[in-house]
């Protein structure tokens, strides 16, 4: 077991754990935000730099600090390491710079975007972003593309996190899309606009931290904060069938996977569950999901719970209702 101190909190972790994973074990405010790292995707992380932390002491054997800020998602823990995240001004300033760079080409079309209200970049910009941009150059612009009949690609909004590419690589047997070109002009593309036809391709929508990949069956139907996220399940032959049904009254507007407190999917769900089963009779509704009070989604929620029903909160714990 290795001992690591993150923001003055000591924790023991197993060898091979990264700093980000150790911080997530502690939980709360010490967890660095991550835009590209996804614990369920192999090889993710190291691209967006939002999870940068300061290593004040490299290890017990070599107590020198690391010369630069390191990406916590891809730096393994060493015994006796001392890490500063929230308590370090340097890290906070670096993160502000990273957010500025992430937003450099982002169109800021949140009023139009379907992801608004549950967007990681929006949260990040709210926490660390500046009010004004410093650039006068035009932002890169791409046409909006349909990749397949179910997914819409807004390349303008993409932050090149690679999560969707890794999802396609890992979840599906035949990869149908990838990144073209490099640097600023990098673009997600399917091979000559081939439709993505895998049974689990819809998970790319949930995995995307911004609104680059959105659900075409939910396109402009409503805003997330007008909907009630409900835990629902059904018997499904190809996936676990445990989903979040976003309801308006007694109608299901869209279906997504269940996300944990770090915004990651608990289980990948199949396209049949996600796109085709929009009728309330298809699902067993368990009850409302617990929404973080800070979230805009909690704005218009009035929870009605029957006695004995169970909430599966985003916060990770399950609690019986009085």
């Amino acid at each position: 077991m290795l001992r690591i101190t993150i923001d003055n909190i000591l924790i023991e972790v197993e060898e091979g754990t990264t700093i980000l994973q150790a911080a997530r074990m502690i939980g709360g405010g010490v967890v660095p935000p991550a835009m590209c790292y996804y614990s369920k995707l192999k090889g993710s992380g190291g691209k967006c730099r939002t999870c940068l932390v300061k290593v004040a002491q490299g290890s017990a054997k070599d107590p020198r600090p690391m010369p630069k800020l390191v990406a916590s998602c891809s730096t393994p823990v060493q015994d006796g390491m001392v890490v500063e995240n929230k308590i370090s001004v340097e890290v906070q300033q670096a993160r502000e710079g990273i957010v500025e760079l992430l937003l450099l080409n982002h169109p800021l079309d949140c009023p139009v975007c379907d992801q608004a209200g549950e967007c990681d970049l929006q949260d990040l910009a709210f926490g660390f972003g500046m009010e004004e941009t410093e650039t006068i150059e035009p932002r890169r612009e791409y046409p909006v593309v349909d990749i397949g009949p179910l997914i819409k690609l807004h390349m303008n909004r993409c932050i090149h996190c690679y999560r969707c590419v890794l999802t396609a690589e890992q979840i599906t047997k035949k990869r149908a899309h990838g990144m073209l070109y490099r640097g600023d002009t990098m673009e997600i593309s399917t091979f000559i606009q081939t439709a993505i036809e895998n049974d689990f391709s819809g998970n790319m929508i949930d995995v995307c931290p911004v609104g680059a990949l959105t659900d075409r069956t939910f396109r402009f139907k409503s805003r997330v904060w007008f909907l009630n996220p409900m835990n629902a399940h059904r018997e499904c032959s190809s996936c676990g069938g445990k989903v979040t049904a976003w309801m308006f009254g007694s109608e299901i507007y869209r279906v997504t996977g269940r996300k944990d407190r770090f915004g990651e999917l608990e289980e990948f769900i199949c396209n049949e569950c996600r796109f085709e089963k929009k009728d309330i009779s298809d699902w067993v509704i368990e009850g409302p999901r617990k929404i973080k009070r800070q979230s805009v989604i909690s704005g218009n929620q009035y929870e009605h719970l029957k006695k004995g029903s169970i909430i599966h909160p985003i916060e990770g714990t399950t609690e019986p209702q009085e």
Partner: protein
Amino acid sequence: MTSLTKRSKVVSNKKMTFWEKIYLPAIVGGMWITFGHLFKKKITIRYPEVKREFSDIYRGKHVLKRDDEGRERCTACGLCAVACPAEAITMIAAERKPGEEKLYREEKYASTYEINMLRCIFCGFCEEACPKEAIFLTREIVKAGYERDKFIYGKDVLVEPVDPAKRIDITRRQTPEVLEFKKDKNQRHNVH
């Protein structure tokens, strides 16, 4: 115990004197005040014929503005509805089709937009929440009516006419600070 605020009055049960008991001096005193008002300036006006000057920040009926090219500014983002404390605003969004670029400014627009004027409390939060400078409260009064469903104002009432001469002036709702902010080319929504 003495009161902390010192606003409370101690009620006394003292006996009235004979002079106070006959009440006549008090009644005469009151009548004198009433009589005196006959010669003072009236504070009421004869409403339909005479109208009062509104305050500069009067908040009346809403307007959905168009931009300089006559395109609707509203993108149905729903922020006005979520900001509305009276839950008076509802809308349905639709996607702009090719060829409709002259009607709607962005790829999404409100196909229906309704404000229930019976629910509305004219607080102006919708105006503050709007990221697209689309909704404003004007100096127009919402007229009284006999039927409740007439008070649900749709886009036919709310959207301002395309004709530049008939546009609704909302400059009074825009303080010097707001106007200065709108000139800032660093803000992308000003460029559009």
